[in-house]
């Protein structure tokens, strides 16, 4: 399945909890903001937003990574554009 993952750099405070939980999907940049990477690779350069092809297990880890963000800076959408997280 495909997920669209978006980081809001304005909300990100660099806690790096997403990197701790889902290091294949998130990494910190030089501004101390989380960036989205695709299975450990930043294809096409750094980005705060990517569409990733993931397995069910990877999806759970990525959502847990997003949930771990204390400032709700990470939003996840499914293929149909439905927001999977945050739920409210």
């Amino acid at each position, binding site marked *: 399945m495909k997920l669209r993952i978006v980081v809001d750099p304005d909300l990100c405070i660099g806690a*790096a909890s997403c990197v701790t939980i889902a290091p294949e999907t998130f990494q*910190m940049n030089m501004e*101390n903001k989380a960036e989205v990477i695709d299975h450990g690779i930043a294809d096409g350069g750094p980005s705060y937003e990517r569409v990733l092809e993931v397995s069910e297990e990877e999806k759970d880890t990525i959502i847990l990574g997003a949930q771990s963000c*204390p400032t709700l800076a990470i939003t996840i959408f499914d293929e149909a554009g439905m927001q999977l997280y945050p739920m*409210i």
Partner: protein
Amino acid sequence: MQYVIIGGGIAGTMAAEELRKAEATAEITIVDEEAHACYSRVLLPHYINGKVPREKVFLRAEKWYAEQRIERLAGTIVTSIDTKNNFVTIHSGRELPYDKLLLATGGQLNLAQTDPKGVCYLQTLDDADGIVARLAEVKRRPVEQQQAVIIGGGFICLEFINIFALHSLPTTVVVRGDGFWSRLLSSRAKTVLAKQAASKGVTILTGQAEALPVGEAEVNGVQLADGTVLPATMVGVGLGTHADKSLFVEAGVDIKSGILANSYLETNLPNVYTAGDAAEFSHPLLGRQMHIGNWLNAQMQGKAVAKTMVGERTEFSLVSSYSTNLLGMHIVFIGDTNPEFAEVRSHKATETSCVDVYVRNDKIVGAVLIGDLVDRANITKAIQEQRSTL
């Protein structure tokens, strides 16, 4: 199965969620001193600074508890815990029997010696509402009455510095020790931070044994031990937290600086567990009892302890970190950064940055990075792998 969780912060809420996932029919009750549903304390500065609206700080909607069949007793104080007969008594007199009990009570704020109106803390959403209201009030006054003092030199102090800077309040910081985080940082690190504060016009008064907010109807200053009064219409207090011992000692729960637990977050009593800021737990990688007060630790402990409570014993070995900033200068703490238990080695140092690594028994157990975060991932990995070098 009846689960009672004391504390509705992120540790208690995560635990409740995991318990429900594991056991569809269990009775789960959260006893919460807070009136509000679970919210992110880390988002409070963003809310105060107008970066997010108030409703966005909530992590769970009220209806979520009902949907999950989790009973949340809001605004409720626990008055006693009977660990022999397995029940908790709340202030209304109601008794809540449990099969398993989770203590996720967080930390109790250390208060200033007095706190007239205008003296602010930053732990709860209500505190944040109070800060928003006070800032608006202070900003309506003549400029010479718009002065701030901060008491304390840790994480909350930095939040106050950043908030007051954003509102252009001239700020003086009063600390007992010799700088920011006086008991954790090396003198190199303290110097870098002091310079950063000074360069942005924030004054730090170190070695102050006393800082007494004064004023009748409202605060008008902070008095130091030598009698000097620093004028202030807004005072931010960040003096850390302590464990509320009486309740737990009476219940027979072993406690030091926090509630003592093994690496499975099991306390000395059967069927009593702890998680989050309240827990002082044995960390398998760091090799000593750790009392950690950061978001990720609390959240992941809530998740881990729930597994253990349902019988799937889960050791907690996460190396967590926390990140903040001082007027734009990034600061990251990773792992164990207490020099009482480790040797502090300088990894990098410049005029405007500093990376210290904390080493114990020839293993890297922690680090503080200021103004230079290049090595963050590498250091975290070294701690996780219990390496002696980077």
